[in-house]
């Protein structure tokens, strides 16, 4: 009897032990499965952007097959670019071609056995840009002062019927005072001679493989690795004002988003409070109008709004000596200073607050305006924070309305419009390098902001949603 009980007890204990182990294993396995899923989804959501970022460094981002790596990501090329930058008389990061510079260069070719490799013809070309403002401005050519030494064969190996030959030469700056920004290079060989490698990977191979061509041999690391980014800045500036357009677009977007955050917070909190707590004639009608306005697309009302701005808001701007508000930031800010959804969010938030504080303030004789500004507004911190983030994000990304009213000059554009003009300059010519570089750079500020203020972003979404 006692023995049986003991056995049963043992059994039970062993069973419980087993079950606990099993449950632990399940928990562990479930967590692992969830992580696998989560990682898979991460790849889906972050992968395309990460790959775009990597590809923005490539000379040709539409290569086939697409690869993760590129010469710009190879440390060997960084070292060469740095050495060449130093050899050219500049720094390792930003190179140049200065008096006294001696730039050593080596290049390797292969031919099938039986063919005699021809000595490469090395040239420092005089290249005039064909597009952009640089096509007009005559810049000095490095070719004026550059002398290419004799091309020496320094090594020859034969393996499996293929002859590999390496040549060396150097380029000297023989002038006395001119410092050149860049040193372009062309090397030409006979048709049957195949390019293998060089001190620095060439930017393009032309004439059916006959010519290897470099934009700037002594660029240094930064312009070499970030060539596309460099182009974005170099090729986009306003010749009228000399300002860099890309920088101007970023600044405009920041400024407009900042101003709109302020106007939205002020106007929406006032209106939201009134709608939530005060009784006045037409309250329901106004609220319904707000709901209705949230449903109607901007394309329905834009023609009239365009005309309103064109005519200076029923001629009101004339009073201040202004005219049409088309193509002005004032017009943009006035026409978008608050949205129906912002008022809606604030109203819902104020309705959710307890009424006691407010009532006691009213009993103490505080006026409505005072109650709003001294009691309610300070309580609205979280909603204001979330609304600020939502507004900032919305303005930063807004496309349609700026497209309609901000058309000229280009230094008035917001970043989204600037990117659209990029599309017409680069993407149409399938020149995806600067295009991707521009998109990556314009996404960075908002992504950084998102990482810092993640909590508010998420709260903002929940505010606009759940409370509705």
């Amino acid at each position, binding site marked *: 009897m006692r023995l049986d009980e003991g056995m049963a007890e043992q059994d039970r204990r062993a069973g419980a032990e087993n079950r606990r182990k099993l449950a632990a294993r399940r928990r562990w396995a479930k967590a692992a499965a969830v992580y696998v899923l989560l990682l898979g989804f991460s790849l889906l959501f972050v992968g395309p952007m990460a790959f775009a970022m990597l590809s923005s460094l490539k000379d040709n981002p539409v290569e086939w097959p697409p690869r993760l790596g590129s010469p710009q990501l190879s440390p060997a090329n960084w070292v060469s670019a740095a050495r060449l930058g130093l050899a050219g008389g500049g720094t390792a990061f930003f190179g140049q071609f200065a008096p006294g510079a001696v730039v050593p260069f080596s290049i390797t070719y292969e031919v099938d056995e039986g063919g005699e490799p021809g000595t490469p013809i090395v040239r420092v070309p005089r290249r005039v840009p064909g597009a952009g403002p640089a096509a007009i401005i005559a810049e000095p050519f490095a070719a004026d002062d550059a002398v290419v030494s004799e091309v020496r064969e320094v090594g020859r190996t034969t393996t499996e019927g293929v002859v590999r030959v390496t040549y060396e030469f150097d380029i000297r700056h023989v002038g006395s005072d001119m410092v050149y920004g860049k040193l372009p290079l062309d090397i030409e060989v006979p048709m049957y001679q195949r390019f293998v490698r060089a001190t620095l990977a060439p930017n393009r191979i032309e004439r059916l493989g006959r010519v290897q061509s470099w934009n700037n041999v002594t660029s240094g690391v930064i312009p070499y690795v970030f060539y596309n980014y460099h182009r974005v800045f170099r090729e986009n500036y306003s010749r009228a004002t000399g300002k860099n357009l890309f920088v101007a677009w970023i600044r405009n977007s920041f400024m407009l988003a900042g101003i709109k955050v302020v*106007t939205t917070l002020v106007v929406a909190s006032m209106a939201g409070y009134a709608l939530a707590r005060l009784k006045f004639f037409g309250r329901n009608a106004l609220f319904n109008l707000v709901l209705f306005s949230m449903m109607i697309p901007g394309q329905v009302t834009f023609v009239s709004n365009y005309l309103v701005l064109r005519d200076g808001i029923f001629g009101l701007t004339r009073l201040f*000596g202004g005219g049409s508000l088309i193509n002005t930031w004032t017009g943009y800010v006035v026409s978008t200073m608050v949205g129906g959804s912002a008022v809606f969010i604030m109203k819902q938030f104020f309705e959710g607050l307890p009424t006691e504080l407010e009532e006691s303030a009213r009993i103490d004789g505080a006026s409505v305006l005072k109650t709003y500004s001294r009691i309610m507004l300070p309580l609205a911190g979280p909603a204001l924070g979330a609304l600020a983030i939502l507004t900032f994000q919305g303005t930063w990304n807004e496309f349609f309305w700026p497209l309609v009213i901000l058309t000229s000059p280009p230094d008035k554009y917001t970043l989204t419009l600037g990117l659209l003009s990029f599309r017409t300059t680069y993407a149409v010519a399938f020149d995806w390098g600067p295009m991707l570089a521009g998109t990556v750079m314009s996404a960075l500020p908002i992504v950084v902001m998102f990482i810092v203020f993640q909590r508010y972003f998420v709260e903002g979404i929940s505010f606009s949603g759940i409370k509705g």
Partner: protein
Amino acid sequence: MKRVKRVVTLLTAIVLTLAVAMCTGAAGADVQVRIAGFGGVDLAIVEELIAKFVQPKLKGVKAVYEPIADGYDRWLVNSLSAGTGPDLFYVDIFWSRGLFSSGAVEPLDSYIAKSKMLKTTDITTSLLNAFTYNGKVYGIPKDFNTLALFYNRDMFDVAKVPYPDESDDWNTLTDKLRKVQAGLPGVYGIALAPEYARMGPFAYAAGFSVFDAKGKSNVIGSQFREGFEFYTGLAKKGVGIMPADIGQGWGGGAFAAEKVAACLEGAWIIGFLRDQSPNLNYGATLLPKNPRTGQRGNLIFTVSWSMNAQSKHKQEAFQVLELLTSPEAQQWVLERGLALPSRQALIDNPYFKSADKEAAANYIVFRGASDGNVFPFEFAAYGDDWMTPINQVLSAVMSGEQTVDVALKEAQKRLDELMK
């Protein structure tokens, strides 16, 4: 609490200050002539023209260029309708008719009659006619472009095929392209964009004109069909390829990437090649002749300087216009290889005789305007809408989705709807 209020007050003050600052603009003593045109290279060219040839000869007038980087046509219509339009502006022949008919553009006849510098006889006639509407001149052409056949000399050399030349007709050219393609694996004969802007010249060569006597378009007739069949036939035979099919946006891109032996483009390709493929060994020749008619066709792409009908400084604006199109200014533009100017006398310029590959190509494009059945690139007030059905069926036929019969019938139906 106080802090919140202070911050709000401060921010509001900043907003107000900014708003006021943005409203008020500076006013100068000189009369300002505002000029608007494209961005990019045009920006640099026009500013250089103003600095070199315009501003030094003006007293009390200041010329300012406003470049529009994207959507220039839309911007122009909007600003003209808003009454904030520039005094002088570019008008592309393509959308000129709608604008001229709206009354927003000032006819120039009376100004030209009084002018000493500008005579209508100086300007290439076909260009000036392109900007004449209802018998009035609405714009002075600033430069122009036509299409030429650009070819890659290296590829023809390697394949041991003679270069295309001016004696080629449709058949002999097809033959040469086919041989080059056979001699070079991975290379196509010619890049063919599915666009009327490239196919049109072949229809013109066969005798097609956009509008018949009744003002209607007939694209199911034999003349259009001949050009259409030749163009799409090149693609169907595999000699031609649509640039998008080889990952390129336009013929120039495919040509620069050495994926095609030839392409049909204008002088705009020259600057592009200089940047993208500086060592490319290319040549250019006139478009091939139609074997039946023995004629070539071509399109003229041109842009004019036109004047705002609501401008407050019309005399000054015309003065600037005269200087912008002066012989010296146009000669400078030509010799820098920037554009082909509209003055007839410049055909004798020594630039055209130089051995440079760019000058040679420019000369071919210049001559394209006066050889065969040449029409400006415009479709009355229909603009883009006229081309849309044609472009749609071009790409459908070239990618094998439709037969020529079905395609042309569909295009005709849509054009009839449009011209109802």
